[in-house]
């Protein structure tokens, strides 16, 4: 029985690889796009314009306040009604990129706000332009604070990519769902799916922890 199941699982090997490839492609592409967009939004949010700040803040709240599954459905089913033709893959990329951008925007904005105003004043006093102040003084310091949560966010992004299986994309989770229809051993099938995610996510979790430890060491914990 179990032997037969294992054999049957071996037959699904190419499908599983395709699923893993899809998961990595989806999260990889939206990770890059989301980071770029998120940084831009984060810088804009702290640029001093009240209007921009609250507009971005509202959008971030709308995205953070609704389940990702609902966001995917909205994009996949409603954009076509507005005349935008898109396939499931594009819809998935748009949804994931948007989600990542919103979270990364908040991380970057928090990082920028954590830089003491004295730093900006020093840069102002030495005559740096606004772009130079951002590029040379503020962002490098903000990055130190932002890096650990940023890596943590990437882990969440990879995991959230599993939700796009709901619109029929054959990612790792969808492959598990397909295989379990033929091989009725959910424990085995989804344990293997879990291992697939674990292999991708766990190194990132470890990296985030290391960065966090290094940062708290650099800041010098208060000895009481």
């Amino acid at each position: 029985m179990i032997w037969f199941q294992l054999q049957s699982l071996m037959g699904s090997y190419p499908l599983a690889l395709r699923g893993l490839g899809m998961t990595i492609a989806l999260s990889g592409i939206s990770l890059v796009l989301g980071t770029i967009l998120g940084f831009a939004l984060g810088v804009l949010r702290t640029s001093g314009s009240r209007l921009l700040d609250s507009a971005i803040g509202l959008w971030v709240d709308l995205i953070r306040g609704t389940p990702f599954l609902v966001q995917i459905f909205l994009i996949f089913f409603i954009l076509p009604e507005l005349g935008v033709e898109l396939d499931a893959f594009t819809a998935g990329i748009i949804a994931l990129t948007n989600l990542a951008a919103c979270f990364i925007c908040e991380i970057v904005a928090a990082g920028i706000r954590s830089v003491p105003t004295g730093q900006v004043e020093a840069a102002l006093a030495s005559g740096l332009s606004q772009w130079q102040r951002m590029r040379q003084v503020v962002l490098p310091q903000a990055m130190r604070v932002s890096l650990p949560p940023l890596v943590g966010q990437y882990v969440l992004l990879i995991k959230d990519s599993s939700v796009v299986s709901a619109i029929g994309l054959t990612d790792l989770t969808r492959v598990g769902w397909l295989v379990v229809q033929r091989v009725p051993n959910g424990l085995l099938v989804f344990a293997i799916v879990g291992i697939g995610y674990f292999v991708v996510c766990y190194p990132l979790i470890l990296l985030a922890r290391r960065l966090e430890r290094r940062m708290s060491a650099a800041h010098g914990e208060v000895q009481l």
Partner: protein
Amino acid sequence: MLENFSFRTIVEYLPLFGQGFAATLWLSIVSFAGALAVGIILCAMNLQRSRLLQLPAKIYIDAIRATPLLAQLYFLYFGLPRLGLVLPELVVGILALALNSGAYIAEIIRAGILSISRGQVEAGIASGMTYAQRMRLVILPQAIRVTIPPLLGQAIVLVKDSALLSLISVAELTRAGQLLASDRFMPAEGFITTAACYLVLYYGLKSLAAFSARWLGVRPIGSRT
């Protein structure tokens, strides 16, 4: 096509959304209570000196954090019958949410306890308190204060995560949206109404978190919202 946005259909489906809203609310509360229990047990194990207790907790927490909730949900949904446990979808869903959030809550509580300075522990030791007395009188009262805002953050995550239960056909808020979308071919009406309902829950919990942070006089520490 959005110019045909039909408020009338939404009104027609309002009772369904009402039921979905109520279902999401109470299943989230039940799951969160379960998650608290799981989290407290895991955290207690994780803080022990004994490796035998620490290691299983650490492995569990890492395994949960490194895999998606949807895969965990399917693991239980397709896996439990294999063990002879045929449970209703709703129970499987609540179980998955509690087991998942429990791992995050364990880490939140641990961070809260570890945020209490060494000096507080030493003051307790110096006045002759036992480990249990220090925990009960000195550390936990302070840790709970810093823990409440991030716990509410985790509650927000849990409410949103509960949308995934619609994929194993639990009748909740997202399921209501799906029904409207497929019955009447009106995805816009269905999912925008669904999103609006979640936003009500989100803003409610968010202001509660902000209020509690102000009331307790603590800065919110990192959470997964």
